């Protein structure tokens, strides 16, 4: 079946508009493709009229795959190769813009973090996830200095905690929801500072007592400064997967097709993501099907944080 799917999408690529006549014109112009799979093509044209001829793909800077933001070439090529459709890739550095672009049909598919997905889904309720990236070691952690007296979460009541920016999965929503679930009052019990990209330096310089962030940051700090400097006092449960999500404007059978292809070719695609990065050792990743319900815990975290999107 693999081959078939492949070619099916290829034919979509040829028929670049919503009516059959156009499709045939286009096909006629490129007899090469027609030769390959003539009958199949004719048959499927009917329900593939509405398939896009170009996939607008945005990446909102998923944690651990930041490299993809700037070195997206191989990934884009792999995707084009696998899906056999032209892919327009946008590295968007702000999740709000990504969400808004999807809402206003300026983008077809996105790679987003769990927290982003929840946000986007709340604005565009019909958007849905179709492939998740499962990774090792994707959870929030509470880090203190080795020589500090803090051992448990109870000890850090009354201290200052550095987190990332509002809405970050592992650097805000994750740790916050842990604290909430443990029964603390975020406003009363801690001095939480959202320091974004200077959180680690601020922590290293004792500006704050505790750093609550993704486990990846911990590994990085250990790598930089050696063992024995930092201590984990609490690790949260695994966070939901990063997701590829689809715009409701895309035909569902097309998304289905893409999903199958991606899962089938995951080594090639994941390989292309990791090819450029240096942090691949933290990403023992694989693709799997994603459900909207996977993100309900995230939603609850948002709710308990009082960050609801009207």
């Amino acid at each position, binding site marked *: 079946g693999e081959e078939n799917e492949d070619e099916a999408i290829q034919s979509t690529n040829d028929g670049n508009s919503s009516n059959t006549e156009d499709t045939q014109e286009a096909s006629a112009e490129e007899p090469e493709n027609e030769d390959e799979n003539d009958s199949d093509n004719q048959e499927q044209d009917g329900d593939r009229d509405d398939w896009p001829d170009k996939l*607008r793909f*945005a990446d909102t*800077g998923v944690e651990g795959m*930041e*490299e993809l*933001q*700037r*070195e997206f070439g191989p990934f884009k090529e792999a995707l084009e190769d696998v899906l056999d459709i032209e892919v*327009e890739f*946008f*590295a*968007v*550095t*702000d999740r*709000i*813009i990504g969400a*808004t*672009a999807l809402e*206003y049909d*300026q*983008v077809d598919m996105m790679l987003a973090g769990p927290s982003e997905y929840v946000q986007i889904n709340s604005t565009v309720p019909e958007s849905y996830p179709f492939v998740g990236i499962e990774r090792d070691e994707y959870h929030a952690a509470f880090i203190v200095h080795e020589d500090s007296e803090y051992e448990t979460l109870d000890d850090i009541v009354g201290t200052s905690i550095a987190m990332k920016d509002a809405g970050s999965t592992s650097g805000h929503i994750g740790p916050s929801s842990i604290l909430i679930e443990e029964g603390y009052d975020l406003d009363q019990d801690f001095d939480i500072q959202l320091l974004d*990209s200077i959180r*680690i*330096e601020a922590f290293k*310089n004792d500006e704050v007592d505790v750093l609550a962030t993704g486990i990846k940051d911990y590994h*990085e700090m250990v790598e*930089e400064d050696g063992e024995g400097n930092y201590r984990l006092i609490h690790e949260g449960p695994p966070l939901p997967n990063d997701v590829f999500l689809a715009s409701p404007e895309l035909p569902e059978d097309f998304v289905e097709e893409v999903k199958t292809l991606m899962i089938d070719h995951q080594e090639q695609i994941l390989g292309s993501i990791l090819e450029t990065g*240096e*942090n691949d050792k933290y990403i023992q990743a694989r693709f799997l099907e994603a459900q909207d319900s996977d993100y309900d815990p995230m939603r609850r975290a948002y709710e308990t944080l009082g960050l609801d999107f009207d």
Partner: protein
Amino acid sequence: MPARFQRPSITTIIGLTAFVTLFILGVTHAQLSFDRIFSGITNMLRFLSSAFPPDPSRITAISNAMYETFQIALVGTAIGVVLSVPIALLASTNTSPHFSIRVITRGIVSTLRTIPDLIWALIFVISVGLGPLAGILTIIVDTIGFCARFFSERIEEIQKGPSQALESTGATKIGVISGSIIPLGFPSFVATSLFAVEKSIRSAVVLGLVGAGGIGVELSTSFTLRRYDEALMIVILILVVVIIVEQISSAIRKKVI
């Protein structure tokens, strides 16, 4: 003999008092304790040393990003500058056709400037989609907010003598503007415009916002990955471009000043 000190006007007194009060409040608020500066200096050196030596391994990729950014910044700024000139003329006391037009134009320019880049990026992404075009539009808006304001300030400072000399020949407003205001303001316009180019390059992050890539994304990725030596390399590259732009500015100004 004039008195040593003129009695300051009520407005001056109120203004000064307000300034001094706010300043002192601000200083208190900031708990200024400059001694910390020295205590922290070793920390700082340690941090800075993590950025040395700059890491040139990605220089080709970075240069390409820079080149792309430069192109887009150039287009956006050039269009912005061209649009700024008429806007500035409408906004200046001495060239505006009417008081109300002046007030409205000024208001619009201030608004362009006040609305953050993020919102502009949003607006343009919504209307024209992701990509360089949205970036260019954002840069155009930024440039107008900046240049129109500075052009207008300069226009108001131009001595009125030469303009009156042209007016006295029966010249139209446009004649006076093209013959006197523009030539006399030219050195300053050049400086401001080339500063705007530089500014657009430096604020290349906005291109990242709209998915147009560029040097801003490179820099912020280096930061997120805490590769400070790579970040330093990028900063150095930007600095080189900034200095080149400044040199061009000086060279042009030297001819027309």
